[in-house]
């Protein structure tokens, strides 16, 4: 079906006119799509960031960190290293001197690294980082090492990671539930807006029917109306969530939660992704909403 340009422009004009004519309902539709997408965006950004945080925490997940007391000398450190290798399940060990540890921290803190310059003594310990053959050895390794001479502390992040994963999972589930409900509500409101639009053009549609307008000629304007409402809602949501996220990143960075902000998804990338998701969802909600109500109220 090759549609002519004037037909397309006729349909767009009809769709937009109808949005204006039923502006109260149009505003309600746009508002509901926008709020559904704003919540979706917030949940989405939370999940993504927690995921990325959990992901980087996971790198330490299968490593055990052994902190060595400051009074232990080089020979003692060597001996502890040999003792560690002897434990069952060890794949690889790496020595991290206190100076290296401080350097690492400085580079992780990035712009704020200069704050560490002022330290009189290096508070970080010498340590070994242990990679295990398998996660299942972790408990054995920790137990074997924690009471050894010269060892200050044995750290293993399993619990933190587990909890992080649990929280991520929970947020994801609640988020999905919330999103499904909100999308349902927005579709319902759009369907009602279109129903009203169909009702207010009842006479026209009736005449179009008798004169022999095709189904799609009658329906396109309503579909366009739904699409436009959905997309406007998406754009509003995009600016709210995009701007909000940018502020959130700034605040987190400024408040010195440097370690955290290093793992946050940059706002430009976030906005690009949100834009695609929002437009697709907004258009989808709008189109489906109008198709639902046309099925019911536009028997041609």
């Amino acid at each position, binding site marked *: 079906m090759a549609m002519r340009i004037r037909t397309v422009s006729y349909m767009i004009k009809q769709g937009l006119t109808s949005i204006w004519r039923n502006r109260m309902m149009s505003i309600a539709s746009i508002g509901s799509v926008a709020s559904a997408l704003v919540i979706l965006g917030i949940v989405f950004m939370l999940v993504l960031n927690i995921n990325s945080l959990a992901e980087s925490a996971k790198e330490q997940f299968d490593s055990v960190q052994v902190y060595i007391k400051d009074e232990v000398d080089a020979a003692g450190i060597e001996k502890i290293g040999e003792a560690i290798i002897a434990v069952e399940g060890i794949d690889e060990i790496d020595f991290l001197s206190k100076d290296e540890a401080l350097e690492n921290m400085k580079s992780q803190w990035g712009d704020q690294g200069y704050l560490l310059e002022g330290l009189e003594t290096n508070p970080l310990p010498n340590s070994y980082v242990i990679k295990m053959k398998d996660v299942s050895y972790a408990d054995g390794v920790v137990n074997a090492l924690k009471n050894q001479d010269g060892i200050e502390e044995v750290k293993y992040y399993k619990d933190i990671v587990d909890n992080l994963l649990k929280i991520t999972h929970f947020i994801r589930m609640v988020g999905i539930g919330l999103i499904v409900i909100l999308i349902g509500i927005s579709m319902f409101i759009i369907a009602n807006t279109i129903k009203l639009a169909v009702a207010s053009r009842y*006479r026209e549609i*009736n*005449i179009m029917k*008798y*004169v*022999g*307008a*095709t189904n799609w000629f009658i329906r396109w304007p309503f579909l366009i109306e739904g699409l436009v409402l959905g997309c406007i809602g998406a754009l509003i949501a995009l600016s709210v969530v995009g701007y909000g996220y940018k502020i959130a990143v700034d605040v987190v960075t400024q408040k010195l939660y440097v370690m955290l902000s290093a793992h946050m998804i940059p706002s430009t990338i976030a906005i690009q992704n949100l834009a695609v998701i929002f437009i697709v969802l907004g258009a989808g909600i709008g189109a489906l909403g109008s198709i639902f109500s046309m099925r019911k109220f536009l028997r041609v």
Partner: protein
Amino acid sequence: MIELLNVTKQYTNGTMALSNINIKIDKGDFVFLVGPSGAGKSTFIKMLLKEVDPTEGKIIIDDLEATTLSRRKVPQLRRKMGVVFQDFRLLPNKTVYENVAFAMEIIEAHPKEVRRQVPMILSMVGLSGKSNMYPDQLSGGEQQRVSIARAIVNNPAVLIADEPTGNLDPETAWEIMKLLKQINRRGTTIVMATHAKEIVDVMQQRVIALEQGRVVRDDRKGVYGYED
């Protein structure tokens, strides 16, 4: 042109609106469909337009079989016909010109064609001077002329009218009948449902009389035949 074969229509509530109708209408015919209220005239007309489907039988219009026609082809069927109703059904926020042009626009006629055809049809129905007026500025008879203009502007083979004079005083009704006769003379088939006895009696056209859903009479040059 139009053929009904053993057509029966029973509404879902059980009302038998038409029973076993067999009618053939030729190209260029002028047919009155008469009968008391509830006889099935409107149902007959709605079936021609495929607004309702018969429960039994076949309806053939030109080269299309309305009864088995797919949804997608319904517009094709309706473009063969123009319709006029008792209540005019004009769009109040469009001018006379726009109301008529609308019928061409929605079948995607070329704008040049619209600008040529609409004034011609308006002059034919005697409304040239009123093309920029709105329906509520017109008399009932004038409004019905606009609706007739809209029905014939796409040159349909058949003009269908359901009680077109029902809302008009006798004098105006006669004006409308003259217009319909004039359209018929140009070769358009006309099917008109009415219970206006005087009109039917004077016009001397084919009369199909319905009563309780049955054809009780089909006269080539008939009269109304009832005293209601």
